[in-house]
């Protein structure tokens, strides 16, 4: 009996749960190179392929550059394709990462987010994914193991939608999500088959109907090609929500592009992404208990950025405390804060905003960090000052 046959919650490491979900999604090709903290995902997939639970080609490669190259090839040939990486691995495959969207290959890649060296660091932050922010993939952040498991299936559905046809990055925090044992409810295999039918496309490399992909984009066509790719990415947003809604109709777990928590009457809102949002929720509960009018806005979808949904989520809020897990050396704010400030600039009723860098290189993010950023953001807002980011807890 497989772990995914259980109808009750299973205590399982999130990495393994994701591999099991990729099995349920019936990926046909997995090409990957192991790198901490992503390794357990592809290691478990290689087990599933070897023991016959997943009928797929597992392609061990000598580098991440080759991993994604193999994935692009297999996806271009019409196979449902999965890979996973982290940090230095993502850096090493970066060249291919930027090519995949223009080829419109619906690869799903899990990125177990980890700091980039140096100094050498294997722990969690978002510097890897933010360094390829402009790669053109759909990018999403999972909050907990259940979400990571569900999204490992939903992501194929979105990527392969004929109206989308874009590669998809599923971000999970390295260690603080990937290596947690927690309760997971596995979606029933037969229902997954209905939700996610086999991948079919006419846009593929086929000997019977030859076509070329990845040609030269001379000055006469390069801009058009880039614009077309961005149109595809921007245009994917309603199909992301549509897939979430259809998943909810079958499996009962509803996801949105932007999630809000206790935002009723909130004057201050924390903005966060990824698994720290769970700790932030508990911090918000404790602050609410103490009478603080505070809530949480979590970005699940990062690209395409859910502009309207975000603006709606923070409407009426006086102060935003925006959390970044990466920073932009030489610039006053991190990437998430920069984007949100840009989005809010034209709003008549825009909130005061402060930016806090938390949890770099695996530094723990406890509840009191969220309490601190709320207090600090309120003070800065009251003083009318908004400026340089604060790296919370840094020893100077």
């Amino acid at each position, binding site marked *: 009996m497989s772990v995914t046959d259980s109808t009750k919650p299973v*205590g399982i490491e999130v990495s393994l749960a994701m591999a099991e979900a990729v099995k349920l999604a019936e990926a046909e090709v997995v090409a990957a190179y192991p790198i901490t903290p992503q390794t357990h995902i592809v290691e478990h997939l290689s087990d599933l392929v070897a023991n016959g639970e997943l009928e797929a080609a597992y392609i061990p490669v000598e580098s991440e550059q080759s991993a994604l190259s193999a994935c692009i090839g297999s996806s271009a040939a019409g196979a449902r394709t999965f890979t996973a990486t982290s940090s230095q691995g993502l850096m090493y495959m970066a060249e291919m990462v930027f090519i995949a969207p223009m080829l419109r290959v619906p690869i799903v890649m899990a990125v177990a987010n980890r700091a980039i060296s140096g100094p050498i660091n*294997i722990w969690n932050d978002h510097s890897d994914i933010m360094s390829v922010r402009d790669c053109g993939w759909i990018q999403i952040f999972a909050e907990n193991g259940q979400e990571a498991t569900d999204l490992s299936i939903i992501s194929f559905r979105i990527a392969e939608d004929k109206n989308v046809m874009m590669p998809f990055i599923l971000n999970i925090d390295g260690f603080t999500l990937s290596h947690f*044992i*927690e309760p997971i409810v596995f979606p029933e295999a037969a229902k997954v088959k209905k939700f996610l039918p086999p991948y079919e496309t006419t846009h593929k490399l086929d000997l019977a109907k030859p076509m070329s992909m990845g040609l030269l984009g001379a000055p006469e066509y390069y801009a058009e090609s880039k614009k077309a790719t961005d149109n595809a990415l921007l245009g994917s947003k309603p199909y992301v929500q549509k897939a979430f809604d259809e998943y909810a109709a079958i499996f009962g777990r509803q996801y949105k592009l932007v999630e809000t928590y206790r935002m009723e009457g909130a004057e201050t809102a924390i903005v966060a992404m990824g698994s*720290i949002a*769970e700790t932030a929720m*508990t911090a918000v509960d404790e602050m609410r208990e103490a009478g603080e009018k505070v809530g949480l806005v979590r970005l699940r979808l990062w690209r395409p950025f859910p502009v309207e949904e975000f603006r709606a989520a923070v409407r009426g809020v006086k102060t935003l405390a925006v959390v970044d897990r990466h920073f932009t050396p030489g610039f006053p704010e991190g990437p998430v804060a920069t984007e949100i400030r840009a989005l809010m600039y034209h709003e008549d009723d825009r909130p005061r905003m402060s930016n806090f860098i938390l949890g770099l290189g695996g530094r723990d993010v406890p509840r009191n960090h969220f309490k601190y950023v709320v207090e600090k953001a309120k003070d800065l807002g009251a003083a009318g000052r908004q400026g340089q980011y604060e790296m919370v807890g840094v020893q100077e």
Partner: protein
Amino acid sequence: MIEIRFHGRGGQGAVTSAELMAQTAISSGKYAQAFPSFGPERRGAPVTAFLRISDQPIRIREKVYAPNVVVVLDPSVMSVTKVDAGMSDDGVLIINSAHPVAAIRKQYGFRQKLATVDALHIALEELKVPITNTVMMGALSRICGVATPDDVRAPLMERFGPTLAPRNQKAFERAFESVKVEG
């Protein structure tokens, strides 16, 4: 919610203990999470692992800073690590030791309730190796009422297989029966 911190040395199974206890709690219908203090694994070096068990969904991912319970798999870590860090006085320390509780209290100055079990002796007899994880799980389960010998049977079988699982079950049960708690 009960928050538990495990202290041991690399190779003794502190991480496995936390994971198996979480899996046992989840299979009994509770919510639980387990995770190690992440880092390169080094055999023999002090290791910490964390466990939360609750009747409600757990929405917190910080380390355990104020444990209700601390499990010490290897008494030698007590001289290099402050195992009671962050604990309030109403917590309980469960220590692998054959020494009298009074002597331990005197040496380390613990203010919490203490429980001891001669885990090394049980592990060597039942498992033939000085790995104290399932033994300490037995002590923890008894002291905190978080699992019974029946609850762990399936998780142990899943983890250790038909040859080793019965021995680990026996080790668990012996600690469950023999753990000594003050007062």
